[in-house]
């Protein structure tokens, strides 16, 4: 009976977890803007993995080698690092925006357009630098 209940819990966690993991990636594909997309993986995927870890704990407790709460540590680390990663990525995206949200004095800046690619700028830069040399 307990096994059955735990299994049920496991399965539910699994379903939810996998759904969110999928959702995170799906958001990546579906949404059109970077700042929309980033919401998907940073939250949904993190939660999804959390659920799957929980499922793993309960599964191992019943079917496997016993209770292994240490899998929680994986979740702890993930929950620690994922927001910071997201923070850094949005910093990166902000640094590439033509028009950044102004400083707090003007808190309502629109979302700027993120320049196409960091590589593009480099290419332009390289081209500019090469030209005078060719001319010489």
């Amino acid at each position, binding site marked *: 009976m307990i096994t*059955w209940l735990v*299994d*049920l819990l*496991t*399965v539910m966690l*699994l*379903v939810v*977890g*996998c*759904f969110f*993991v*999928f959702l*995170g*990636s*799906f958001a*990546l*594909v579906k949404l059109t803007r*970077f700042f929309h*997309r*980033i919401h998907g*993986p940073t939250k949904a*995927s*993190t939660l*999804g*993995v959390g659920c*799957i*870890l929980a*499922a*793993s704990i309960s*599964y*191992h407790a019943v*079917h*496997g*080698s016993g209770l*292994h709460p*240490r*899998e929680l*540590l*994986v*979740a*702890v*680390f*993930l929950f620690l*690092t*994922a927001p*910071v*990663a997201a923070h*850094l*990525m*949005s*910093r*990166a*995206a902000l*640094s*590439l925006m033509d028009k950044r949200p102004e400083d707090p004095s003007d808190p309502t800046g629109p979302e700027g357009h*993120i320049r*196409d*690619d*960091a*590589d593009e700028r480099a290419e332009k830069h390289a081209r500019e630098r090469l030209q005078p040399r060719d001319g010489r």
Partner: protein
Amino acid sequence: MIGIEVDLFIAGGLVVVGIAMLLSLWRLVRGPTAPDRILALDTLYVSTIALLVLFGMYLDTEIYFEVALIIAMLGFFGTVVLSKYVVRRDIVE
């Protein structure tokens, strides 16, 4: 009371996560901006944890704990470095 075939769900979950990785890959290749790609790579790392945990359940083994732990703890290093590069070019200032 119906017996629950947990293994079936695990196997299904593996495929779902795999498809999620495929989707991330699409964004990774497609871009168009560098942060998009970094995000996609980050997502791939997170999905990998899910995959490993599911696989550990599937095989009924604890052996992937260390791998998952390391990805959870340090997997964002790539994100840190790449983002810093985009922000400053110079990674260590």
